[in-house]
C-alpha cells in the first residue's frame, strides 16, 4: 500500500499512528490528515491553530481590559476557571439566533461576503509555514504572496458594507477604504524592507538567517518592525485604531445589519486578520520557529515555538484595548500618510544600507 508523502512525524504519537494506518477505512483518512499540506491547512497554522488562539484571545481581551478598568469581565459561565468558555457560549448563542436580511439589502452579496471574508482572511495561511516541515505551499516567494493576500480581504468588508444599505454601514465602509489606503503602503514597504534585508522572500531562508546570526529581524531593522507593528494594529482594527468597527461611534461599522451566525463570522474576521498578520510578523521579525528542539514532539516542536510567539504578540495587541482610547479618523490618516509612510521609506533605505555594508546572508 502506498502512502501520501511526506507525512508529519510526531514521535510520541507514532505507535498509535502506525496502528491506525493499518486499519482499513480509517488508515487512508489518517494518512490524508497527516499529509503535510493538509496538516498545515487543517491543524497548524490553519484552522485548529486559529481557533485555539481565537477562543483564548477573545477571553483574554475581555478579561485583561476588565481587570485594568476595575471590572471583572466574563465570569458567570464556568466560574471556577474564570469564564474561559465564554466565547464558546457566545458562539452557541450566535448559532441559535435568526439571521435577518432586511428588505433593502442586496441579498446575495449581503449573505456571501462574510463567508468569503472568513476564507480570504485565512488564505495567507497557505503560504505561511509553521515550521521547517509543516507548510502547505512553498514557492520561494511566500512572504510576498502572503503580504499581498492579506490586502485582498478589505474588499470583502467594503462590499458587505455597501450591500447592507445602512447609514452606519456606509460610514464604516468609507472609513475602511480610507484606513486601507493609509496603512497598506507603509505595511508593504516595511515587509519589502525586510525582503531587501534578507535578500529573499523565502520564510525558511529568513528564519535560518535570523537563527544563524542570533539576531531577530526586529533588531536588524527596528524601524520596519515599529511600522509593521503599528500597521498591524491598524489593519486588524485593534485599539487605538478601532475606527472602522467603533461600536460607541457607528454601531459596528460595516457589519451593523448582520445578525446571528453571520455576525459571528464578521466578528471573528478581525481576530483572524490579527492572527495571520501576527504569524507574518513572528516569522519576519521575531525569529520565527527558532527554539530548542523538543524530541517527543518531532515536527510539532517548531510550531510550538512559533505558536508561543504568536500568542504573546496577539495578547499584547488585545491588551492595548485596556490602555488606549480611540484615535479619530483624521488623526489616524495623518499618522498613516505622514509618520508611518516616512518611517517606512527610511526603513527601506536602512535595509539597503545594511545589505550593502554588512550582508547578512
Amino acid at each position, binding site marked *: 500500500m502506498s502512502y501520501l508523502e511526506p507525512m508529519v512525524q510526531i514521535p510520541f504519537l507514532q505507535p498509535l499512528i502506525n496502528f491506525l494506518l493499518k486499519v482499513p477505512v480509517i488508515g487512508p483518512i489518517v494518512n490524508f490528515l497527516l499529509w503535510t499540506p493538509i496538516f498545515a491547512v487543517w491543524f497548524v497554522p490553519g484552522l485548529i491553530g486559529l481557533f485555539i488562539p481565537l477562543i483564548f484571545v477573545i477571553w483574554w481581551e475581555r478579561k485583561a481590559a476588565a*481587570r485594568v478598568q*476595575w471590572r*471583572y469581565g466574563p465570569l458567570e459561565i464556568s466560574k471556577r476557571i474564570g469564564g474561559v468558555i465564554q466565547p464558546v457560549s457566545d458562539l452557541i448563542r450566535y448559532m441559535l439566533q435568526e439571521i435577518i436580511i432586511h428588505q433593502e439589502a442586496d441579498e446575495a452579496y449581503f449573505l456571501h461576503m462574510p463567508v468569503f471574508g472568513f476564507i480570504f482572511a485565512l488564505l495567507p495561511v497557505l503560504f505561511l509555514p509553521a515550521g521547517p516541515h509543516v507548510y502547505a505551499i512553498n514557492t520561494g516567494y511566500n512572504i510576498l504572496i502572503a503580504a499581498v493576500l492579506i490586502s485582498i480581504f478589505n474588499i470583502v468588508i467594503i462590499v458587505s458594507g455597501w450591500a447592507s444599505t445602512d447609514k452606519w454601514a456606509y460610514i464604516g465602509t468609507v472609513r475602511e477604504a480610507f484606513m486601507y489606503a493609509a496603512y497598506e503602503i507603509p505595511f508593504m514597504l516595511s515587509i519589502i524592507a525586510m525582503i531587501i534585508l534578507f535578500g529573499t522572500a523565502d520564510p525558511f531562508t529568513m528564519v535560518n538567517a535570523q537563527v544563524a546570526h542570533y539576531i531577530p529581524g526586529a533588531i536588524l531593522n527596528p524601524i520596519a518592525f515599529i511600522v509593521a507593528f503599528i500597521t498591524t494594529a491598524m489593519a486588524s482594527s485593534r485599539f487605538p485604531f478601532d475606527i472602522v468597527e467603533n461600536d460607541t461611534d457607528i454601531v459596528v461599522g460595516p457589519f451593523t445589519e448582520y445578525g446571528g451566525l453571520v455576525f459571528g463570522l464578521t466578528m471573528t474576521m478581525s481576530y483572524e486578520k490579527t492572527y495571520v498578520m501576527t504569524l507574518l510578523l513572528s516569522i519576519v521579525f521575531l525569529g520565527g520557529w527558532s527554539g530548542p528542539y523538543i524530541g517527543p514532539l518531532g515536527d510539532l516542536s517548531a510550531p510550538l515555538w512559533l505558536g508561543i510567539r504568536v500568542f504573546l504578540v496577539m495578547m499584547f495587541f488585545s491588551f492595548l484595548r485596556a490602555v*488606549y482610547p480611540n484615535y479619530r479618523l483624521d488623526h489616524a490618516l495623518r499618522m498613516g500618510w505622514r509618520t508611518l509612510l516616512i518611517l517606512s521609506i527610511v526603513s527601506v533605505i536602512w535595509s539597503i544600507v545594511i545589505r550593502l555594508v554588512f550582508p547578512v546572508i
Partner: protein
Amino acid sequence: MAKKVTQPKVNPVAGHLNALAVGVKEFVKPTRFTIQYPRERRWVIDRFRGFIINDVEKCISCFQCAWACPVNAIFMYRAPNGKFYPGIRYEQCILCHFCVDACPVGSLQGTTISDGVFPDLESTVFKPEDMHNLPQWDDEAEYVVKYDFDENGNLKIIKMRKDEVK
C-alpha cells in the same frame, strides 16, 4: 477679545510608554472595588434609609407623616376602629424618611433594607396591615463588603461573612 489657545506639547513616545506602564500596573495589582451583587452586599450604616415599618399600637393617627411626605406617597386608610393609619405606595416613595422624622411618637421606623423587587405594580402599594413587619426577601449574599480608608488615605476593602455582621 479672542484668545488663541495652543495645544499643550506632549512627548508622544513618553506618553505611550506611560500609558502602557499604567495599564501593566493596574493589570498586576488592580485597584478595583466591585461588589458582586447577588453574592456580596454592601455594608450600610445603621441610619441608612430603606423600607419603612409602622407600629400600629403606637400610632396616634395624627396625619403628620402624610403632611410631611414630599411626593404624596403616604395614604391614610380608615381602620375598623375609626382611626386612620398610614400605608406607603413604594412606586412613589423616594425613601427620604421625612415621615420618620415627622412622627411625634416614633411609631414609624426606618430599616436598612433597600434591595427588593416587586412582581407587579399592585404589590408596591402597602396597606396599613402590611406595614407591621419587615418585608421579606431572599438574600443570596454570603459576604458583606465594607469600604474604609487606611492611615495613608488609600482605599481598604473589608470583606466579612454575613453572619459576622449582625
